[in-house]
């Protein structure tokens, strides 16, 4: 009897109940599988982002020259193979968004935090496997929305990855500020929810699930780096969410948080009293912490 208990206690997690293909590979709650899912999704987004930057560089190297690659990949945005000025800005915007959020923030942090935190602190899994799964699938949905936004009629968001209003708020200022920007904002709102769930999970795991004798001062430096980046994420991403929500209000419900005294295409708009500088401040909070985030991400590879 006791031998049986012993054997069972030594048994690694994951073998207690039968796993189907769906629970093992798709809606998995296992931190290693989720790490792999993040890795694959982040890599695909990374390939898309790098291809965009290659097209930008090709346009800069041979300005306004026709190119079969543009014709093949950009379609109507490259009439006779010459890149359109609007799509150049869209490439800049989406490339920046993908690289900063989907690759550096989610791809790297999601992959390595999920894989290494439980392994290096001696925990069986993350604090909440379910929330971890939700976090990945929200990230996946936001990636899909972002990719789908390339295909809308008036073009994807093109106001720069900082999406400063009024340019991003007024569809008449730029084609990309119509449906493309709406999808960008929807994608980012979901992305922020995903990032928050993930970060909270990392923080709770590091604080609560360390194995016996693993005090905070004995944590590997890698884990300290993940821990600090998670805290920075929890502090800064809600600020971006609030900025995005206010921008959605300005765009769709006629409020004037970021807009004032605007004359465009022969008309004075009704917006009064807002300030684009407010958005710049909100975004700066995120921008600073994302740079910190990236610096710590890079430094931890040297440890």
């Amino acid at each position, binding site marked *: 009897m006791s031998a049986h208990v012993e054997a069972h206690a030594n048994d690694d997690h994951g073998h207690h109940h039968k796993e189907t293909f769906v629970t093992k590979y798709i809606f998995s709650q296992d931190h290693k599988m989720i790490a792999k899912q993040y890795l694959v999704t982040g890599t695909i987004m990374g390939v898309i982002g790098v291809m965009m930057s290659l097209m930008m560089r090709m346009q800069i190297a041979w300005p306004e020259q026709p190119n079969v690659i543009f014709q093949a990949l950009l379609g109507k945005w490259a009439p006779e193979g010459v890149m359109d*000025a*609007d799509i150049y800005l869209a490439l800049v915007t989406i490339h920046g968004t993908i690289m900063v959020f989907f690759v550096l923030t989610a791809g790297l942090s999601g992959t390595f935090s999920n894989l290494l935190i439980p392994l290096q602190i001696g925990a069986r899994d993350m604090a909440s496997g379910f929330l971890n799964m939700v976090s990945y699938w929200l990230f996946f949905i936001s990636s899909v929305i972002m990719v789908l936004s390339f295909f809308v009629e008036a073009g994807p968001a093109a106001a720069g990855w900082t999406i400063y*209003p009024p340019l991003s708020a*007024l569809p008449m200022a730029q084609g990309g500020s119509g449906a493309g920007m709406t999808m960008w904002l929807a994608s980012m709102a979901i992305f922020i929810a995903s990032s928050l769930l993930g970060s909270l999970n990392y923080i709770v795991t590091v604080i609560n699930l360390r194995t016996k004798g693993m005090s905070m001062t004995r944590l590997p430096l890698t884990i300290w780096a993940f821990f600090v980046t998670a805290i920075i994420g929890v502090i800064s991403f809600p600020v971006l969410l609030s900025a995005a929500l206010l921008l959605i209000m300005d765009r769709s419900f006629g409020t004037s948080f970021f807009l004032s005294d605007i*004359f*465009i295409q*022969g008309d004075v708009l009704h917006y009064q009293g807002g*300030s684009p500088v407010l958005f710049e401040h909100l975004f700066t909070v995120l921008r600073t912490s994302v740079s910190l985030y990236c610096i710590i991400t890079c430094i931890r590879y040297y440890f």
Partner: protein
Amino acid sequence: MTALLSILVLVFIFVAIWQMVKIFDLTQSKTAESNSQVANDQDNKINGYLMLGFLIFIYVITIMCFVMFGDFPLMSNSASEHGPGIDNLMIISMIVIFFVQTVTQFLLHYFAFKYRGEKGKKALFYADNNKLEAIWTIIPVIVLAGLIIQGLFTWTTIMNVSTENDPLVIELYAQQFNWKARYGGEDNTLGKANVRLIDIDRANILGLDESDPNAQDDVITAELHLPVGRPVLFKMRSQDVLHSAYMPHFRAQMNCVPGMITQFGFTPTVTTVDMRETPEMIDKVQNINEIRIEKSKALVAKGEEGLERYEFDYLLLCNKICGKSHYNMQMKIIVETQEEYDAWMETQKAFKDSLN
């Protein structure tokens, strides 16, 4: 939609090929020894030397870049009073960064080579060394604090605009996708303005208050003329989206924000004519024109018109993405003597005479 579908097809083809390669791999029988996944001394040695090779590669690339592109005209020929201060900051930062980069890259790659894996080699357990850590913390702190303090002093001198030395007040007005300049006229005072007062039919394109006496003698132009040596105070306004007034030769930049007025002041020190005659500018212009002549030949051969000769001019550019033609949103700046400026101003129309 067809684009999306064809991309999906490509993705599936890629997955199919990948799967076939995997199956092919599985069918190959493995010889255990040579196919071992554990790195041996030979592998580590190769990687160690590759590290050194990469170090040499980045040094060679750096030296090549210095030889081929190593002159920085935009770091030495500023045309405003505060310009040299900014150039200094830039040069000091570049030297510090370059020095640190050279040293740390050497250490990083050399250590990776020296302590590569070898059978029987054991890592030394080295907990900490407070003295060493203090040194490599304090040195960067001093250097960075020095850079930041110098930057702060430069910043306050540049941004501290006083109206005591009688600056020429000019409004820079940004719209998608061009610039307008508004001079204060005889009284050097800008009249009140708001986009709500814009009346295209009466040609009141900047929204000046027609009842404001200060606005009557304002002069609106599409070219920016500045007398050399006189302080200028720019008041920036935008009618639609964020723009940024960027005058690279004067080391000046300020955002133009709809709904508010921003400002920036500087004193131009070199006239356009003098700048064109500096040796480095002559070199640069000649270089550009040679490229243009080459390109014109190709164009003429195709039966199109050749390119014009390039001549240097100061420019006001937009430096914040503002829409489709952002890249081409610019205004010519001409710095000239006071007499030339006065003569040019004589030919301009006052606001009250320009209305329909």
